C-alpha cells in the first residue's frame, strides 16, 4: 500500500493537459512555418520555435523535479530578481520599434516582463498563502497591491501596457481565491474601473490640452479600438486628410487581422493557402507572433479557431481541477494564478484578432513565436504540473 501510494504521487502528471499542450505546440510549429515561409522560403523560425519548446519543456520538467513548497521559499528572491531585470531593461535594454522590452544576453534576447508575470504570481501566491485570518488585515491587502504595482509601473514604462495590465487579473484572482475579503477587492476593482473610465473619456473626448499624456501609439490604439474618427472636426481639409491617412495606417493591423479571420470562413483556405499572410497584407513583422491566431483562423477557418479554443479550454479547466486537488493553499493559489495568467493571455490575444480587445503586445501562449513567451508559458505549466504531482506528498 505504502509503496504504491508513493509511486502514485510521484509518477502521476495531468495527461489531458499535456496532450492538449502537445497539440498546441504542434499547431504552433505548423503555423509559424506557414506564416514565415510564405515570405521567406529559407525562414527557420519554426525550427527556432521547436527549440524553444524543447528548452521550455526542459525548464518545466526542471520545475517539476522539486516540490513547489520547497522552491516557493525563494519566491521573494525570484520576485526581486525579476524587478532587477526590469530595471536592467530600463538601463541597458534593447530598443525595438520604440519600446525597450528586451535584454541582450549574448546570442539570446529575453523579455523580463514575461518572467515578471511569473515572479509576481509566485510572490503573491507565497505571500497570501498565510492563514486566512491574517488576510482581513488591510495592510496585507495593501502590501499585495504594492507587490503588483512595482513591476506594473516598471513594465508600463517600457512601454508595454498589455503585459503590465495582465498583472492585475492574475493578482486579483489569487487574492480572491486566497480569501482576501471581497469588499476590499470590490473597492479596488471599482476604484480602478472608475479611473479607467475617466481615463478613456479623457483620451477619447477631451480636447488635446486636457488629455493625460499617454504614449502616442497607445492613444492611437485606443482610438482605433473605439472606432473614433482621428480627424479633428474643425481642422483644415489637409489636416483632416492627414488624420484620415494616419487612421488608416493605425487601424491597418486590426483591419487586416479581421479580414484574415473573417475571410477564413467556416473551413478556412487550407494550410499555407492564406492570402492575407502570403501577400503581405497581414504585416510580416507580426503575423508569426502577435497575430498568429489570424493566420490559423484564415487557413483553418472557424473549425480551426474552435479547435484552438477547445485546446485552451482543456488546459485551463485541468488547471482549475489541479487547483482543486492541491494539497495546500500555496499550491491552490499557484495553480489558480497560472490559470488566470494563461486565460488573460488567450482572451486578450484572440480578442484583439477579432477586435474584441484593443491591440496590445500580448502573445498567445505557446502559439505565438517567441522564446521568452514560450519559456514562461511552459514554466507556468510546470508549476501547474508540480502542484498536481505533489498534491498528496505528505
Amino acid at each position, binding site marked *: 500500500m505504502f509503496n504504491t501510494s508513493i509511486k502514485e504521487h510521484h509518477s502521476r502528471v495531468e495527461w489531458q493537459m499535456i496532450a492538449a499542450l502537445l497539440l498546441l505546440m504542434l499547431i504552433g510549429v505548423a503555423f509559424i512555418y506557414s506564416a514565415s515561409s510564405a515570405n521567406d522560403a529559407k525562414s527557420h523560425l519554426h525550427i527556432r520555435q521547436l527549440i524553444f519548446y524543447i528548452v521550455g519543456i526542459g525548464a518545466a520538467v526542471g520545475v517539476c523535479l522539486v516540490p513547489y513548497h520547497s522552491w516557493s521559499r525563494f519566491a521573494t528572491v525570484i520576485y526581486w530578481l525579476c524587478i532587477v531585470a526590469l530595471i536592467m531593461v530600463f538601463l541597458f535594454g534593447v530598443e525595438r520599434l520604440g519600446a525597450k522590452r528586451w535584454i541582450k544576453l549574448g546570442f539570446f534576447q529575453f523579455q523580463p516582463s514575461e518572467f515578471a508575470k511569473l515572479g509576481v504570481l509566485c510572490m503573491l501566491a507565497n505571500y497570501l498563502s498565510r492563514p486566512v485570518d491574517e488576510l482581513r488585515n488591510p495592510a496585507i491587502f495593501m502590501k499585495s497591491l504594492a507587490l503588483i504595482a512595482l513591476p506594473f509601473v516598471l513594465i508600463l514604462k517600457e512601454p508595454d501596457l498589455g503585459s503590465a495590465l495582465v498583472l492585475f487579473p492574475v493578482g486579483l*484572482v489569487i487574492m480572491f481565491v486566497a480569501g482576501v475579503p471581497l469588499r476590499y477587492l470590490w473597492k479596488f476593482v471599482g476604484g480602478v474601473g472608475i479611473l479607467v473610465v475617466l481615463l478613456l473619456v479623457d483620451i477619447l473626448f477631451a480636447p488635446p490640452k486636457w488629455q493625460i499624456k499617454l504614449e502616442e501609439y497607445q492613444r492611437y490604439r485606443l482610438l482605433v479600438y473605439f472606432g473614433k474618427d482621428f480627424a479633428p472636426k474643425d481642422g483644415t481639409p489637409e489636416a483632416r486628410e492627414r488624420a484620415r491617412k494616419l487612421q488608416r495606417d493605425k487601424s491597418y493591423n486590426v483591419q487586416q487581422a479581421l479580414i484574415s479571420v473573417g*475571410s477564413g470562413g467556416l473551413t478556412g483556405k487550407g494550410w499555407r493557402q492564406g492570402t492575407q499572410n502570403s501577400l503581405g497584407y497581414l504585416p510580416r513583422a507580426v503575423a508569426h507572433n502577435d497575430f498568429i491566431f489570424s493566420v490559423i483562423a484564415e487557413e483553418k477557418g472557424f473549425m480551426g479557431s474552435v479547435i484552438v479554443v477547445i485546446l485552451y479550454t482543456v488546459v485551463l479547466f485541468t488547471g482549475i481541477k489541479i487547483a482543486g486537488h492541491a494539497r495546500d493553499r500555496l499550491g491552490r493559489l499557484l495553480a489558480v494564478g497560472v490559470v488566470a495568467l494563461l486565460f488573460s493571455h488567450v482572451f486578450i490575444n484572440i480578442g484583439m484578432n477579432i477586435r474584441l480587445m484593443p491591440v496590445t503586445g500580448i502573445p498567445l501562449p505557446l502559439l505565438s513565436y517567441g522564446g521568452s513567451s514560450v519559456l514562461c508559458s511552459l514554466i507556468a505549466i510546470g508549476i501547474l504540473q508540480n502542484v498536481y504531482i505533489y498534491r498528496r506528498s505528505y
Partner: protein
Amino acid sequence: MLVFDQLRKEDRKLRWIAVGVLFGLLILLGGLWQVQVFARKEYEQDLKVQAFRKVRVPSARGKILDRNGELLAENQPRFVVNLYLEDLRSIFRQQYNHTVTNATFLAEKGGKLTRADRSRLSADVRYQVVSNIVWQVSSMILPQPLVLQARAFSRHYNESLALPLPVLANLTPEQVALFMERGGENPGVQLEVQPVRHYPNESLAVHLLGYVQREIIHETDEEIAFEDKIPDLVGKAGLEAMFDAELRGTPGYRSILVNNLGYRHKEEIWSDPEPGLNLALTLDINVQKTAEAALRSTGANTRGAAVVLDVRNGDILAMASSPTFDPNQFLYGISHEAWAEINDPKLKPQLNRATHGAYAPGSVFKIVTGLAFLEADLVDPMQEIFAPGYYQLGRRRIDDLAPPGNYNFKNAFKKSSNFYFIEYGLRAGPQKIIEMGNRFHLGEKTGALSPRQEQAGYFPAVGQKYKKDGSRWLDGDTANLCIGQGELTLTPIQVAVMTAAIANGGKVFKPRLVTALLDEGQQTTVKKFPSEVVNDLQVSKANLDIVRAAMLADVEEKGGTGEKAYVPGMNVCGKTGTAQVRVAKGMDHITWFASFAPFEAPRYAVVVMIESGSSGGGTCAPMAREIYKTLQKIESGTAPLKRDQIAVLPSPLQRREN
C-alpha cells in the same frame, strides 16, 4: 466531463473561477462565430477589394467586309515587348540594399535615413533598374535606344502596377527575330502579341470606314477605381464610329491577385473577350477602287467625289471622296506632318465630299427642272423654240453655252441649253420646280451614313417666298434655280439618289451601305438592314422616258455634252453640269456628271463631282466612263472577284451572271 466537473465543484471560489473562464471562452467563440461565419461575406468582400484587380481585356474588333466578303478592315497581330515588374522585385531589393549599405551614400544622409529618404531611394532604385532594362532591350532592337521617362514610369507604377509595362510596340519581323535571339535574357521581359486594327487597302474607302484610335482612359471614370483597363480601340469616324459598339464586341475580364504592394501575384480569367461582329457592306471593292482611281486620274489632290448606286435597291456600290488619307496612321501616334496634311484647309482630306460636301448642282439639276415642266404639261417636248445663246431677264443677261438655234427638249437637254430650261421653268413657276425637288428629298440627309457624317445641303421649301438670306424670291432666282444655281446646294449622294430614281422609274431610296451584322464564329447573321424606299415620285412614265431618252442622247449622240462617258454596249445615260460658284478670288467651277446605265434596264447610277474641274463633260464624264467599264467587266466576269466568301445577300452584280 472536465468542464462540467469544475462547474459543479463544491469549492465555491474555484467554481466562480471556472464560470469566469468558461464565460470568457464563450465570448471568444461567439466573437469568432460572428466574424468567421456570420459576417464572413463582408470580410471576403474586403479581401477581394484589396487583393484583386479586375482587368478589362479588349476583344478582337469585328471585320468590315465588302459585298463579296473582301476585307476592308481587319485585325493584324502586333508584336509588343512588355516588362513584368513583379519579376524585378528581387533586383529592386538587391539594388536598394546595395545602395543603403554604401558608406558614402549614408554619410551624405548623415548616417540615418528617414522614412521619406527610404521611400525616395526605393523609387529611384526602381526607376534605375527598369530604365536600364528598357535601354538594354531597346538598344538590341532599335538603332536608337529608348529612354524611359521617369514620370511615365512612376505613373505606371502608381496606377497600374498589376499590368505589365509596355516597352516596345509594333515590332517588325526582323525586330522580333532580333529580340528572340538576344532580348529574352533580361528578367521580366516578354514578347507578346496583340491584335491591332489594319486596313489592308490603306486609304480605300477611308471616308466610309473611318478609323480607330486608342482609347483615352479618363481618370475621373467611376469604374477606374475598381478595374484596370487595357486601352481598347475606339471608332472615331465613319462606320468604325457608327457601329463602334457592335464591332467592339464584349471585353473579357481577368482578375489579378495582387500583394500588399500591388504587384501581380497570380492571374485568373473570369471571362474571355467575345469578338465583335463583322460588318458586311454593299460596297464592291473593285468598283470602289476604280472610282477612287478615276478621281485621282486628274491628280492626287483632285477634290471630288464619286458615288455608284444600284438603282434597283439603293445599295452603295462605291462612294469615293478625294483626296484621301491612310487610316492606319491614326493608331499609334500620327506625325505632325501627316496630321497637318490631313487637316489641310483647302484639300480637307478628312471631308467625305460625297455626303458631307454640298455644292451647286448646275445643269445636272435640269433633270428636275425638265421633269417639273413636263409634268406641268406646259411643253410639247418635240416642239422647237429658238434660243439666242443667252437669256435676257429684265436687265440681266444669263449666258448660255449652247449655241444659238432651234431646240426641242432632247436637243436642249443634250446641249444643256440654259435658255430652254429657264424659259419653260419660268413658265412653270418656281413652286412646280421646288415641289418636284422635294419629291426627290433634295436638301435632306439621305441616311447613307450617320447624321453626323452627312449634311443636308439646301433646297427651298414649297411656298417659300424668301431666300436664305431673307430677301424676296424674284424671277431671277427662279431662273437660277432652273439651271441648278443659286438657292440650292446638293450633296453627291443626293444627286445619285435622284438619278437612281429617274433610272428605276421613280423610287427614291435611302442609300444602303451596310447589309448585315455577322457573327463570324457562329456563322450567323445577327441583324439585316433591308433596303428602304423613302418616296415614289409618282410622275408619268411617259415623262420619265422623255428625260431618260434625253439623258441617253447626251452621251450617245454626237454633240452631247456627256459624250466622253460613252461605253460601248453599256448605253450610258447622263447629264453634265458645270456650276459657277463665287470663291474668294473670282469664280470657280463645280463640275458634275450624273448618269445611269444601261438605258433599257438600268442597274447603276454613277455620279461624279469634281471641284474646280473644267467642265462636267470634260472632267467628270471620263471618270464615270472608267467606272462603267469596271462595272461592265464585273458583269462579264472578267474582273477579279472572290466568290468563295460569304455573300450575305445575292449581289445584283452576280445575279446577272447566274
